[in-house]
């Protein structure tokens, strides 16, 4: 693709703005699939989805179908979902358990680590280069796989930083999610939403750390919830969790500014830290005790004092620790993105904690709720507004420019409504996209 030479790509990202083509040009999207989604560590799934040998979960990395599967030796493998013979997808869809993977077209069979182990009419290959023991005809393992607290990541690039260094300061968000379990263990449970958007994947990723939008976009849901509950609750009634959840969305700018923003290497970032819109939830009976039994009082206080809002692990998912859930980004086309929402159970915690996360996801992440569709609408209007040829080719990122605080290790801090995170994400974007991925 000669259209976007490095120099031209680099020119799309300025210190205070980005060119609109970044969101609208199908060529840029294809380059992103190759250079960002083909280089970064991409979230694949959680190992609790494949507990037993032979358990598999079929998904995508960028546009490529893959299968996460537990091999009989206990290792979790991520295989390209392609038969080594003629190229058919071996696993049709979804999840399940299989002793071996058999292609549904000609019946070639692969072991749970991808090795080709059975060929029908094998003698027909005598004297040819095709056959068992030739790794090029296996279901191929993706170049690199690693996991962190059971979260399985894959990289399509054989080179690059190891997972832990790459996660950088965002690793602490995963640590906190796991430590909030009295057994130090999480598992995926309670199903998944798959919310289809008619907009570019970066709009969702940016929005998760955009503290300027909730009071506008979510006024109709959060503001209305406050009013309806106020009118209906009698004195002394306990506020239902639904209200605790919805009402902080319309907190004022000062609140969101104080929440703060932090960004680390490789494009990761977080809103909140010491407090967030998730801070005001009522305690769950028995939870504190369960944590204290495991960690002691002081450590429990430290664990619960961490109140990160949304952590963006760039580019492929976002995470909440208080609400034990993640949202996984699945780019489909330049203007088409699926956002999957998954919930974790914190093993050993009262079920009420898990059920509260389920309620949160119903109310905020479902495509039939009162909050998600207004975000969808904002992205839709961005995608369409950027089609104008009005002489303004740029998307502004000027808010609080020049006011970032930078630590010695490169960690950046800013007030919650700063555009710092967007500027930071696009510097990372440029690093992946230009000079053969210099950052990698």
């Amino acid at each position, binding site marked *: 693709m000669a259209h976007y030479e490095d120099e031209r790509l680099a020119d799309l990202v300025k210190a205070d703005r980005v060119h609109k083509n970044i969101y609208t040009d199908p060529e840029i999207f294809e380059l992103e699939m190759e250079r960002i989604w083909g280089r970064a560590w991409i979230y694949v799934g959680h190992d609790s989805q494949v507990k037993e040998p032979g358990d598999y979960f079929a998904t995508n990395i960028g546009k490529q179908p893959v299968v996460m599967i537990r091999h009989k030796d206990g290792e979790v493998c991520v295989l390209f979902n392609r038969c080594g013979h003629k190229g058919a997808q071996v696993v049709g869809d979804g999840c399940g358990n299989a002793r071996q993977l058999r292609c549904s077209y000609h019946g070639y069979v692969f072991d749970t680590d991808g090795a080709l182990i059975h060929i029908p009419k094998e003698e027909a290959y005598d004297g040819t280069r095709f056959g068992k023991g030739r790794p090029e005809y296996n279901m191929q393992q993706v170049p690199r796989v690693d996991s962190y607290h059971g979260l399985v990541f894959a990289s399509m690039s054989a080179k690059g930083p190891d997972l832990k260094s790459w996660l950088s300061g965002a690793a602490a968000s995963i640590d906190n999610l796991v430590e909030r379990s009295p057994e130090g263990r999480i598992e995926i449970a309670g*199903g998944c939403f798959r*919310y289809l958007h008619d907009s570019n994947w970066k709009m969702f990723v940016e929005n998760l750390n955009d503290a300027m939008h909730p009071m506008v*976009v979510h006024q109709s*849901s959060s503001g209305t*919830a406050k009013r309806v509950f106020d009118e209906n609750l009698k004195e002394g009634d306990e506020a239902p969790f*639904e209200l605790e959840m919805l009402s902080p969305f319309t907190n004022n700018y000062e609140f969101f500014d104080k929440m703060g923003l932090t960004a680390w290497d490789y494009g990761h970032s977080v809103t909140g830290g010491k407090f967030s819109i998730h801070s005001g939830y009522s305690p769950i009976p028995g939870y504190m005790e369960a944590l204290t039994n495991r960690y002691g009082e002081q450590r429990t206080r430290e664990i619960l004092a961490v109140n990160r809002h949304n952590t963006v692990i760039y580019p492929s998912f976002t995470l909440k620790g208080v609400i034990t859930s993640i949202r996984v980004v699945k780019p489909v086309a330049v203007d088409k993105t699926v956002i999957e929402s998954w919930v974790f159970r914190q093993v050993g915690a009262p079920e009420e904690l*898990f059920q509260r996360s389920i309620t949160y996801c*119903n109310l905020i992440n*479902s495509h039939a709720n009162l909050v998600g*569709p207004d975000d969808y609408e904002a992205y839709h209007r961005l995608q369409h507004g950027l089609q104008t040829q009005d002489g303004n080719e740029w998307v502004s990122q000027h808010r609080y420019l020049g006011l970032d605080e930078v630590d010695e290790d490169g960690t950046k801090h800013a007030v919650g409504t700063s555009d710092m995170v967007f500027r930071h994400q696009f510097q990372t974007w440029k690093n992946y996209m230009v000079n053969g991925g210099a950052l990698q």
Partner: protein
Amino acid sequence: MSAPPAAVRQSERPGLKALEQFLFHEARLLDEQRWEEWNALYLEDGEYWVPATPGQPDPKNHVSLIYETGLLRAVRIKRYKHPSAFSLQPKPRSVHLVSNVTLDDFDGSNGECIVTSRFIMLQYRREKQDVFAGSYTHKLIVRGNEFKIASKRVDLLNCDAPLENILIYL
């Protein structure tokens, strides 16, 4: 319409025609966006539930596309008129078709009916029309000459597919 007697008495098994007419009336209220009248068909603690996976056993331990009792319905209904509900501008429209109505179970001692049916709902907004289809399971309580909805479960055929917005009650 006379008020139901205070004492519990044996209810009569409702006829299919009456059940159908009730479901058609409910569908019409939704299509005409008479939300408050629609909500008044429900018992106050009545549940409206759209599971997110086929055969979902309960709404507490698995995510649902919608799970609402009275207060949350009141929030949604009030939001329909909110000037800043941008996903409802332009306003969505719908057609609900209800068919294949059967009375699966009836308990004369408390007037509880389990009614199943099939539906198609067309949602139109901003040059885009979506088709949703599936089955309804209504738990209705017969009170004198009228029905109240104790629960409505909507099993959407493609509930676990990647879907865009559902803006109107199914």
